[in-house]
């Protein structure tokens, strides 16, 4: 048992006191095959009775959910990008273009999976379904004073609504800005990875609904392996910008239980580039505070001792 607050942690579930426990379960969201249908958002709400989150046309492409919050536990981001690409000249006729040695047939999969080649304007439309990361080192859980937030036997992080008193300490603690208070209720809500479904062998609602297997659910170790292969495959196809996010146990949160394959910088999708568990330095802080307190206590005690003399 390490009881650590940062860094790699082999058995996060065992660390939380589960002696015999299932494998740590997680999400791998492969955004290269996301079609932005938002089935995940709706399936999540239907299963978990998450309320409607407001009828606002945002103008942020097709994203009218905007962010993860108490009433949106999955959020599909839409990013429209325009980039110059090698353009077929409109004035060049067919035979000339062949003579110029321009490629006439794209190798299957040679293009960016979310960038169809459409002539003189390269439009890329990135879509990505975001979710609570179920961090290895979950600051929300570490700061929760009530024991409402806890780690399940699947290694996921869940709010127990019968405990939460709405203190809100967890809200600023989350390095991803996921956990949020429901205004009319006060308590905090977020993705549970469908804790009540996992117990009976069902997949989380979002992963089950996802039409293209963009959201994959399974043992985290397997997912990490699969993700590694997928990113290698994309690199082979020339999609150099494919990268994993949240997959590494060496990152600032000890690796995410829900990680992603992205096709651009995380910031582009609205994700922090280098998230760090906000309680990383807590132990050191407490140690110093404790030393100070001890000094004070000793001082006070000594004063009593002195007085009793």
């Amino acid at each position, binding site marked *: 048992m390490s009881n650590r607050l940062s860094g790699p942690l082999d058995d996060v579930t065992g660390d939380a006191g589960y002696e015999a426990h299932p494998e740590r379960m997680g999400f791998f969201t492969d955004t290269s*095959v996301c079609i932005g249908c938002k089935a995940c958002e709706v399936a999540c709400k239907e299963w978990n009775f998450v309320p409607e989150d407001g009828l606002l046309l945002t103008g942020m492409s097709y994203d009218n959910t905007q962010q993860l919050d108490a009433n949106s536990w999955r959020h599909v981001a839409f990013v429209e990008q325009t980039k110059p690409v090698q353009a077929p000249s409109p004035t060049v*006729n*067919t035979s000339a273009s062949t003579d110029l040695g321009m490629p006439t047939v794209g190798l299957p999969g040679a293009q960016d999976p979310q960038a*169809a080649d459409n002539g003189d304007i390269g439009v890329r439309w990135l879509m990505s379904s975001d979710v609570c990361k179920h961090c290895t080192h979950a600051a929300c859980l570490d700061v929760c004073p009530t024991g409402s937030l806890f780690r399940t036997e699947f290694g996921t992080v869940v709010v127990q609504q019968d405990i939460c008193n709405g203190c809100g300490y967890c809200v600023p603690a989350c390095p991803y800005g996921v956990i949020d208070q429901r205004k009319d209720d006060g308590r905090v809500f977020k993705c549970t990875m469908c804790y009540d479904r996992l117990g009976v062998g069902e997949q989380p609602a979002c992963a089950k609904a996802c039409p293209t297997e963009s959201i994959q659910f399974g043992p985290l170790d397997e997912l990490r392996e699969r993700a590694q292969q997928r990113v290698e495959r994309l690199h082979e196809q020339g999609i150099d910008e494919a990268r994993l996010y949240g997959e590494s146990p060496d990152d600032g949160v000890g690796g995410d239980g829900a990680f992603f394959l992205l096709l651009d910088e995380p910031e582009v999708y609205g994700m922090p580039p280098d998230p760090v568990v906000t309680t990383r330095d807590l132990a050191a802080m407490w140690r110093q505070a404790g030393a100070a307190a001890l000094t004070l206590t000793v001082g006070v005690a000594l004063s009593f001792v002195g007085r009793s003399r």
Partner: protein
Amino acid sequence: MAECHPVGFQYVMEAKRRGATIIHVDPRFTRTSAVSDIHVPIRAASDIAFLGGLINHIVSNELDFREYVLAYTNAAAIIGPDFVDTEDLAGLFSGFDPEQATYNHDSWKYEGSPTDTRHKKGTDEDLDASRAEAAGSGGPRVHIKPQLDETLQHPRCVYQLLKKHFARYTPEMVHEVCGIEPAQFQQVADTLVHNSGRERTTALAYAVGWTHHSTGSQIIRAGAILQLLLGNVGRPGGGIIALRGHASIQGSTDIPTLYNLLPGYLPMPHASQHQSLDDWVRADEGAAGFWGNIRDYGVSLLKSWWGDAATAENDFCFDYLPRLTGDHGTYRTVLDQIEGKIAGYFLVGENPAVGSSNGKMQRRGLANLDWLVVRDLVMIESATFWADGPEIETGEMRTADIGTEVFFLPAASHTEKSGTFTNTQRLLQWHHEAVAPPDDCRSELWFYYHLGKRIRDKLAGSTDERDRPLLDLTWEYPEHGVHAEPDAEAVLREINGTGPDGAALSSYTELAADGSTRSGCWIYCGVYADEVNQSARRKPGHEQSWVAPEWGWAWPANRRTLYNRASADPDGKPWSERKAYVWWDQTLADGQGRWTGHDIPDFIADRHPHHVPAEGAQGPDAIGGSDPFIMMTDGKAWLYAPAGVVDGPMPTHYEPPESPVSNPLYPDQQHNPARRSYPHEINARNPDLSEVYPFVFTTYRVTEHHTAGGMSRTLPYLSELQPEFFCEVSPGLATERGLEHLGWATITSARTAIEARVLVTDRMRPLRVAGQVVHQIGLPYHWGPNGLSTGDAANDLVNVTVDPNVNIQDKVGTCAIAPGRRPRGPALLQHVAEHRRRAGVPVDEGKTP
């Protein structure tokens, strides 16, 4: 496809993962484009020019899959000498009658065909439309096997005619018409050609982007020609796949509530020709192929409906069928409603005030009825037009003046009733009642069954001959539950049909013309085989072969891929191991040989691949061993249609009814000459090339909503995802017209003006067409004033002009766009009138003739 059929799209993504190239052709950059290898932005409604360009590329370079084309298509057939192509008639085919705006098809036929007197000028104009749709389950009829030139050199053989007809569809012309760069066109053409042959296939998938045009049927025809040339029909991984948008829209044509069809694509009788059963079958009976047995199907239907009352002596009650005299389609009907010719209207799970073209025309019709019955789950706009329709706001209508009596009857949902949907691949799937419907909610089955019972009770004892069809109707179904719900399985069993012993039949080949069999829809015969509801089968997919034949039931005869005889070569061997699907196995049936494979062969099981039919053979006996297209009277797929398509034997590009450019391909022929228009003051058309209406609009769906919105705009979880009506415009158009992102725009056509929030996006791309820049405006059409997510109805902008084959309207038109909200009240009418005046729309445009 990702946008509107996300779950079906999983297979596209899987194919892509395995190396398939995904090409997406669409005016806008959608969620499908986002994950495709190639997005081809195209001007809306220019699809025939694009497909014609591909056809031209293939035939002019002889890149077709020649073995397939020679064996399975009519490429070698010789056409009569009277046929004249659009090349020689400035965009018209021979046989055009400008007065009627219809074609006489006599000159289009195979050489040596007898002259058909049915299509002579002077018969009712709509006869053809009715018969064209009867080809839904089989091909139209030709009465001879064509003469062939297998060298494909005869100047009047189909291949040469195709070559000549499409010769002007060059890459440069495609660029000119569609706005597609030649290099990109070449990329698509090469990809398709390289993916053709014994080892490889390409699938085409389409939806209403192809069908919703006044040339819609011909766009599909062009797709089919392309696929046939590449050898992609009847083979695994091939096909031309209609992505239908409603749970049972396929079923709605199979068992049609359509004016011109009876179940199984049998035509409704027409007054000018069909006064008896003999008249009705005359054109088809005995023709080669299974359609030649039409009398079996027709008599079985009549027996199914009128039971013991239908006898050979009384022509099986054929006279009980009402007869058509012309266009009784929905748009004609709505104009008749406006003119006060119709008393009552049933709207059953349909919301024309939002979903049909020209909403004002729809609402005017609704307001001029004696009575209206609306059956739906929620309060749709078509039920509330009298209270809060747009015409109330403008003052065109006053609630107190609207005499329509409205009954809103709540419907049962899919979980509250049992029955079958037929999905887009002809698969019937049963859904079971999970809970009873609440309060007054009832199924349509309940409503029509009990309405029929009441009507029959009220007519009991009538001696009026007119009431016999109702009184003799077979109308007894078992009832169950507190609401006396009729038993849907009993109805399905009636649809399937029964034999002389009263037992369920297994196949339509068992149907007879002597009155001994009954079947409510011959193509569905077999869905209740062995007295088992085959549509309810749910053997898990992973426990059966990849074809999954034991999940539901597909018509006909549970075949999953139609015309699959074509998956084998003429000798009956698979074209290749990779593409093996159905083949001839000589070792089966004690060495007699049989067709076998992964699917049920869509062929006569014991017909040898080399079988040559006897001279004079009729019906199925006339099918040769290498004639895969068993519903076609010559057994071949038609690159050129010598019959059955009313607006030409080959697809031809015409501009849509409203267009900002003149037709670059046929400058003398701007529009489909055989289109059907509905001239009426309420349906005025924007003039061609109008500077007042310079932009193209095209309507479409987004993933988060469903059609006219009744099943999505009322749901919080869907409404929050797309909470408002919006239009999509390019940055260029936004700059040109001063439109601001998230601001408002007013979009105006000769019909009306609507307002929408603006999304400025690079996904909408201006195209250079015919030397000018064409801006396209995207309008998702899901919205109306009711529900949680609201907005103006995009379809209010649309002019009704329809395809003459199937009476389907164009979804593309021209418009003006300006920043800001639309005027309110009577000022809106002034705004529209001012545009019309400036554009020169005739004041009396189309007073009803």
